[in-house]
């Protein structure tokens, strides 16, 4: 297959669009991307945004979306909320129909998105009830904190056989976003009758060494579930390895399961055995990634080295693909391409059986379920490589549903 053919094939696969192009279709559709290329989460943001942009370039290298070009307007927000708010206003001024967010700005932006009717994808982080399409009509999360918590407990049960009477340690980031899954975990602890103890760690990871000793020696945890981001995950891996805690009894939420986290902890050998939850596949053996490489070769350039940081890069690709797919559905309904946020929302809610060649779990997004099923996959570091140890799965869907729809704890008005 020639490079060009594979590009076309990938575009067809990704956007599932017909070949016919309306003659007047030259409208540019803007997606706003809030990036963290600088600031504390730069190791995540840099490959993630590169993935997003490369996928958009791939779509444009083909036929765009039914002939309409997509422009990904990127603004660096340093993982801070005030620049994110300024960026939001700028992107709104540029008539962005959809936003890609990856961080805690989602809490501040969620009410405005509903007011301004702009769709946003918030993957991995965000309110636990973001999967509830009725409560957050314009927010689409891919892996909500509730689903991650349930999946982590489900995996722990699978590894230990039974959780009854076991001790599970939860290590969240010491922030409200970090502690959000505790309610779900407490519920599951009651249901599966395991002991749950929370060891909150500051986002700098400063107290990780004492925390690891406390958790491994004093509490003697049978399993560790960690919800950390930034520099903290690598320190956690390092310190748990140092106190001799078996890393194959550790699972990280999506925020701490990238190659960068493992490498910063001292390399793959140190982190051997450790598990991470993923909402996008790891590695480069996926058709859409090969198409991106082919696109670079066709332009006489080398594919970017960012691709090697495949966990984050692939997440960027998935987020872009999800938005392009929704825009594709929206444009199908309005062929002149003059779509607004509401059209994209409708387009999102029409997504069925979206897998991007296996790079994402099969997503089934509905007006009520904005998470698309909330399936996750566990990957493990084994012999210096990331290998999948489960298929895409969900755990305790009823518990999640109860938390996602619960009125409890909603800010009183």
């Amino acid at each position, binding site marked *: 297959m020639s490079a060009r053919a594979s590009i076309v094939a990938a575009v067809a696969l990704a956007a599932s669009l017909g070949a016919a192009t309306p003659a007047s279709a030259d409208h540019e559709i803007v997606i706003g991307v809030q*990036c963290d*290329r*600088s600031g504390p989460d730069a190791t995540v943001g*840099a490959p993630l*945004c590169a993935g997003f942009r490369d996928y958009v370039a791939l779509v444009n290298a083909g036929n765009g979306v039914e002939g309409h070009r997509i422009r990904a307007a*990127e*603004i*660096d927000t*340093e993982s801070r*909320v*005030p*620049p994110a*708010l*300024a960026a939001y*206003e*700028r992107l*709104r*001024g540029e008539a962005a129909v959809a936003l890609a967010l990856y961080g*805690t700005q989602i*809490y*501040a932006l*969620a*009410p*405005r998105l*509903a*007011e301004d009717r702009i769709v946003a994808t918030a993957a991995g982080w965000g*309110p*636990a009830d973001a999967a509830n399409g009725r409560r957050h009509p314009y927010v689409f999360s891919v892996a909500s904190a509730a689903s991650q918590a349930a999946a982590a407990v489900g995996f722990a049960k699978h590894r230990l056989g039974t959780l009854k009477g076991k001790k599970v340690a939860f290590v969240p980031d*010491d*922030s*409200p*976003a970090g*502690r*959000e899954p*505790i*309610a779900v975990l407490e519920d599951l602890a009651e249901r599966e009758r395991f002991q749950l103890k929370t060891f909150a760690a500051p986002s700098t990871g400063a107290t990780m060494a004492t925390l690891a000793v406390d958790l491994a020696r004093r509490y003697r945890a049978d399993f560790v579930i960690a919800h950390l981001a930034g520099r903290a995950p690598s320190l956690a891996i390092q310190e748990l390895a140092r106190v001799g805690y078996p890393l194959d009894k550790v699972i990280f939420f999506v925020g701490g399961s990238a190659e960068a986290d493992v490498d910063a902890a001292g390399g793959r050998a140190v982190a051997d055995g450790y598990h991470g939850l993923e909402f996008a596949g790891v590695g480069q053996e996926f058709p859409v990634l090969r198409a991106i490489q082919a696109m670079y070769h066709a332009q006489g350039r080398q594919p970017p080295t960012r691709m090697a940081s495949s966990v984050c890069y692939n997440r960027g690709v998935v987020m872009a693909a999800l938005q392009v797919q929704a825009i594709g559905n929206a444009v199908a309904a309005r062929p002149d391409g003059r779509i607004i946020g509401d059209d994209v929302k409708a387009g999102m809610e029409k997504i069925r059986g979206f897998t991007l060649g296996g790079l994402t779990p099969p997503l089934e997004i509905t007006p009520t379920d904005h998470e698309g099923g909330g399936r996750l996959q566990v990957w493990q570091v084994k012999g210096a490589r990331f290998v999948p140890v489960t298929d895409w799965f969900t755990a305790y869907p009823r518990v999640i549903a109860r938390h996602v729809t619960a009125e*409890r*704890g*909603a*800010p*009183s*008005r």
Partner: protein
Amino acid sequence: MIYREAGQFKTTYASDQAIFPIVQDRVVVALGVLAVFVLPTRFANEYWLQAILIPFLIYALAALGLNLLTGYAGQLSLGTGGFMAVGAYAAFKLSTAFPSLSIVIVFLLSGLIAALVGVVFGIPSLRIKGFYLAVATLAAQFFLIWLFNKVAWFVNYAPSGTITAPSRTVLGVTVTGPTASAAARYVLALVFVAVFALIAKNLVRGRIGRSWMAIRDRDIAAEIIGVRPLRTKLLAFAISSFYCGIAGAELVFLYLGSAETLAFDIGLSFLVLFMVIIGGLGSVLGSFLGAAFIVLVPIFLTNAPHVMGLSLPVAFQKQLELMVFGGLIIFFLIVEPHGLARLWQITKEKLRLWPFPH
């Protein structure tokens, strides 16, 4: 200045004590105040209001508060972020517990609560001075953030741990919450800044301000001439924290809409301190200039390449912005270590003699 002050004689004590003794100054300031109330609400778009003007006003109020404490009373504080958090969480608790209470009163009450907390953390200032006091106030910063993080009561047991501004109206206009227009939020922030800047200006010109400056310049001498250090210092902490508390409440209610403790971390304390240092310690105008510098310059640098038609890679642009911003801070501090307010004063004095400087 471009106008001459010749022929204006002060014949009464009142005219001698006026904030703006020159007629032309009074006219310019009156027109300026009118303009900032009318023009942005009429002509500024959402981006200008939301991303530039509202944060500028809120940071200016916080900088004003810190300037009273650090610039006038000489008490170095790194607890600004913590005191702002007290204001924000107090406003959230008050407005959700008493939904019918006017938001203006909520803001004032949150300022009072912040003032009480400020007094408590100001007590060590009687024994500790200078850098050591900065470390003591740092304890306030960390303790308060820890408290709001740990005690779920402060966030009404929201699982996300965030506080969200409820919708509230003033005179029938929605001013907070997601449905409030940017213009309404701007006007409310502006009213608070205008009123409290006037109060601050009068405070520092009066007995209280003079006693603060006496304590700042030589505390033992001040004590000998009859200034009571405990009362003066605690008053400085109280009033400063009152300003910061209102600024914190505004930060959540008028700007961010929803926030967690991360919004009030140590970075915010430093940011406000930098505003005060760059703007000018011991100057009301300096608080505004410093806030303008810190808020506007990064936004200008972000937009400049875009406006000039340069298409730079996003990552490079951000690094460039940080470098230029850092360079500008160093430049201004070398040119005039006493801040932008002093630069403005020198400019005014030069213009007064212009075009015949000798």
